[in-house]
């Protein structure tokens, strides 16, 4: 049983660390949003694993809060970034001249 415990915490901790690596590296804002979303899901999975291993139902309401926070955070940042898009002045609804993405800048240099 203890071996299973170590393996479970190791797998979840490894996933959280790799998501943190992407959160630190991520060349664009949206990469960080995706990494934060995944990190919150991994955190809620870790809380559920803790609750299951210890048979401790104290952290179960926290799971609901974390899962809702992940949704609200990612949607609000996505709408905020979408509001940064520039519209053309001619009024035909087309986008123009978006801010240059970090990957393109990196690929060009």
């Amino acid at each position, binding site marked *: 049983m203890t071996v299973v415990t170590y393996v479970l915490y190791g797998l979840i901790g490894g996933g959280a660390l790799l998501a943190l690596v992407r959160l630190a590296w991520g060349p664009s804002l949206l990469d960080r949003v*995706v990494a934060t979303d995944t990190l919150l899901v991994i955190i809620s999975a870790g809380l559920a694993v803790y609750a299951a291993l210890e048979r401790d139902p104290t952290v179960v309401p926290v799971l609901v809060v974390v899962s809702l926070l992940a949704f609200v955070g990612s949607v609000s940042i996505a709408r905020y970034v979408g509001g940064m898009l520039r519209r053309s002045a001619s009024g035909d609804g087309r986008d123009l001249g978006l801010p240059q993405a970090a990957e393109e800048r990196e690929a060009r240099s």
Partner: protein
Amino acid sequence: MTAVVDVVAMACLLAGAFLCLTAGLGLVRFPDVLSRMHAGTKPQVLGVLLVMVGAAIRLHGWSNVWMLLLVAAFQLLTAPVSAHMISRVAYRRRHVRRDLLLVDEFDADQQQSGDAPADAGPEPPATAGRG
């Protein structure tokens, strides 16, 4: 009996935790936002469902089971919405590696009129035609 139930619960928890690790690996290894999102969504649905099933087996009492079911339902409802919004903004901000796309149905060459974006800020006030 309890041993068998515990083994099933541990198998579910292990599968969910393994999906969490694969999400982290995919986030680090994949090239652009859309494919990273593909990797990161793995534990969002299947991983959380497996972990919730394992925790619901281990925890006793119906209140815990209902709350875990609520978490799973929230995940199932909200994951497509947030993924849709993030991927649309990612495409329109050109965070997508277009050379890696096999089919690009939003390509401007194949499309007659630009798609009207829904959340690109407020429209400029229409002054023409109002006199």
